[in-house]
């Protein structure tokens, strides 16, 4: 018992010694450390501004920021999905960005209200197992997946933010009725529901299921670790291959907007954009940046045309449609 008391005392001392530094920037990041950490480090090296980061799923961070309200310690929020950051924008929790910052990104990849900018893009794709699916069988349109040819062969992750954002995009482009029809069609076609993108890519790679709807870069990363995998990405010609952006905004409660702005501009700088392109296999969104050679051009996709503000605002409705389709009941 004495040992325990001594230990607790020691632990409390250590903990109180590592208190937060007031002059630093606090970032809530929905991008995981592997996908953004090195950029924060070089930002600190170049500017001398310390960056303290809380890494969590974007949805959880959005809930946390809502709960914190005007007491949030965060200055910058980086979201993996437009849904989460759009929700905060709609609730007045984000500050308007300056024109200089907004000007770094094409209008289609930033919020119309100037509350957030896109950093990088992921494309929704069909990942398929090349040993099990012949290229002739691959669909050109997302709507073909409700055909009986694809019965019980397609994996989805309906609880995942990216899928919910995709449904919002589908509604935006084709209307709620078409979106619900498609969801119900997938349910009738015995689409298999999985937890998330990663688990779908792994399941496809080992032949557990023929194909699945995911963001494009999960398979590229899986292949980077294990090039012998039979999983391949297939792009749709239509809304199936939407762009899902990752985005950053400054909290309206931030007391360090100047430093926060510098960080966001740094994330849109050529070096950071190249990091997103070459290290994480994403599409850089800053004006003038070009995707890595391995990635096809963004402009060729229908997805580049819709309004991300609507995409984020419609999250609740998309959730209702997914629930109504019965897709998730096993």
């Amino acid at each position, binding site marked *: *018992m004495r040992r*325990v*008391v001594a*230990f*607790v005392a020691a*632990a*409390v001392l*250590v*903990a*109180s010694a*590592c208190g*937060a530094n007031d002059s630093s920037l*606090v970032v809530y990041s929905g991008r*995981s*450390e*592997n*996908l953004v950490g090195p950029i924060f480090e070089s930002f600190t090296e170049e500017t001398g501004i310390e960056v*303290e*980061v*809380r*890494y*969590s*799923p974007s949805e*959880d961070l959005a*809930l*946390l920021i809502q*709960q*914190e*309200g005007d*007491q949030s*310690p965060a200055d910058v929020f980086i979201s993996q999905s437009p*849904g989460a950051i759009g*929700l905060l924008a709609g609730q007045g929790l984000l500050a308007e960005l300056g024109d200089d910052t907004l000007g770094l990104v094409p209008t289609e990849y930033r919020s119309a209200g100037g509350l957030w900018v896109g950093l990088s893009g992921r494309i929704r794709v069909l990942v398929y197992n090349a040993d099990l699916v012949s290229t002739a069988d691959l669909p050109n349109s997302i709507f073909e997946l409700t055909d009986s040819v694809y019965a019980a062969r397609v994996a989805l992750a309906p*609880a995942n*933010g990216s899928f919910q954002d995709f449904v919002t995009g589908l509604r935006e482009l084709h209307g709620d009725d078409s979106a619900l029809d498609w969801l119900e069609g997938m349910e009738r076609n015995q689409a298999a*529901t*999985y*937890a*998330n993108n*990663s*688990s779908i*890519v*792994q*399941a496809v790679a*080992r*032949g*557990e299921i023929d194909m699945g709807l995911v963001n494009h870069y*999960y398979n590229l*990363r*899986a292949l980077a*670790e*294990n090039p012998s995998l039979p999983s391949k990405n297939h792009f749709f010609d239509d809304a199936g291959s939407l762009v899902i952006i990752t985005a950053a905004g400054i909290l309206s409660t931030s007391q360090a907007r100047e430093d926060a702005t510098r960080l966001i501009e740094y994330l849109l700088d050529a070096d950071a954009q190249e990091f997103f392109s070459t290290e994480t296999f994403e599409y850089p969104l800053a004006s003038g940046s070009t995707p890595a050679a391995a990635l096809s051009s963004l402009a060729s996709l229908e997805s580049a045309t819709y309004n991300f503000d609507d995409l984020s605002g419609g*999250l*609740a409705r*998309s*959730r209702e449609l997914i*629930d109504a389709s019965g897709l*998730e*009941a*096993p």
Partner: protein
Amino acid sequence: MRVASKRPRSQSHYRRATPPLLSIAGWVTTLVFAAPFVYLAWETTRLGNFFDVLGRSDVTGPLLRSLALASATSALATFIGGWLAWLIVRTDLPGRRIFGVAVALPLVIPSYVAAASLRAAFGPGSLIGWVPRPSGFLGALLVLTAVTYPYVYLPVAARLRTMPASLEDAARSLGDTGMAVVRRVVIPQARTALVGGSLIVALYTMSDFGAVSLLRYDTMTRAIFASRLAAPETALALGLTLSLVALAVASVTRKTSQTPGTAPNAAHMRVYSVGKYRNWLIAAVLALVTLALVAPIGVFVVWWLRGGQGVVDSFAALRDPAVHSALAGLTAGGAAMILLLPAAYLVARRTSRTAAAVDLMVAATFALPGLVLALAVVYWVLRTPGPIAGLYQSFPLLIIAYLVHFGVQSHRSTTAAVQAIPPQYGEAARMLGSGPIRRFITVDVPLISPGVIAGGGLVMLSTMKELPATLLLAPLGFDTLATRVWGAAADGFLADTGIASLALVAISALLTWILVLRPAQLVAPLQSASRPAE
């Protein structure tokens, strides 16, 4: 000596009024543990009508599946954990010292990592193709049992450790043999620990999201997770439903109680010979260790090696997270051992309303998903004026959150230990003129130590693998091995997932051995066995 003495509550010692300090401590504990429910109830009411929301969403299916999985996992984990404890503490099973550590370790593997690795280990296209891939109800049952049976194993082992040989000897002298002694003496004596463990497994299963989602079994937590941002009123109403169910489950298990202990004497603890079953039992334990520990570890190693990263670099980057994990685990475990003692005394010795309230509230918070619990903590801390709000995202607050979430693990184990103190001891010490503090230190502490340490150990291990609350409540930059595992796994960095998971298992193993298994003497002595059981 009677084999079954009267229940403690009929004795005069327990009919004295509850000391005021104990009462106050009980109410404070109750209030702290009730805070998440008040938050859920309040926010649900604020955002909409609870019954409307439930009526709109398809709640019956997920709720029934949650309950089915929780009861099946609880039953299987109790069966496995109970027998393992017996084998390792009370028999001469060869290799029991190593098994004793190995079988406790699956507890530290986060359930989502266990699910992902077992799906990568077994099934067509996986490492071992001829075994069916875990999936659905059976898959979830298997994976969750593999990571939760130690919740039964550790407290029961602690109880068996202090159970005196005299009762068993008495039963044997009356003609009982083998299984009859187990059924008539051992199980009743270990009942509080068994039931406590099974409750913890049931609540854990109800709160789990990671494993069930990966194994594609649709429960309440999936519904909460899917709607948490898009439809918070639904998520909150479902969370409230889950906690009401947890309260009901906890109150059912409150009815059990065990007979009070008699003089424990570790030196005379009866050790049975496994005799002719030796090889079968070794095979069974090996099979369990293979499934719950070796298979996940094997997958971690494969992921790591396939990623082709430098060994030294990888582990060096994990030094800080490893220190943070150990610090958080040790502090939470230690704090649980001390801070939850009053509650254990109340529940073990009193029948007051305070005792009932504290027992229920401490249990039910464990069924809440970590995210819900974390948001409740944020809600209360930021609304409390003064120094409390200053604790926001500090280490002490993180520890409090762990305590509120995992307190039941220490509480049940400690309660079982306190109940097992033979009442005659306290009476004797009192007659010899000892004050309450002296009685506690000289009589109670030595007797309850194994149970208290086992409970603290459970909290430590649970803390080390905790993810959602750690992500939201830890001080900035306080990354743990569990958050590292998540950060890598979420985006498909399997090599990093493997290394961080290996580090988590290694550190937990070390701490479990040094701090839990050795001091609590949860492995049978090496001395030769006394007479065989059969």
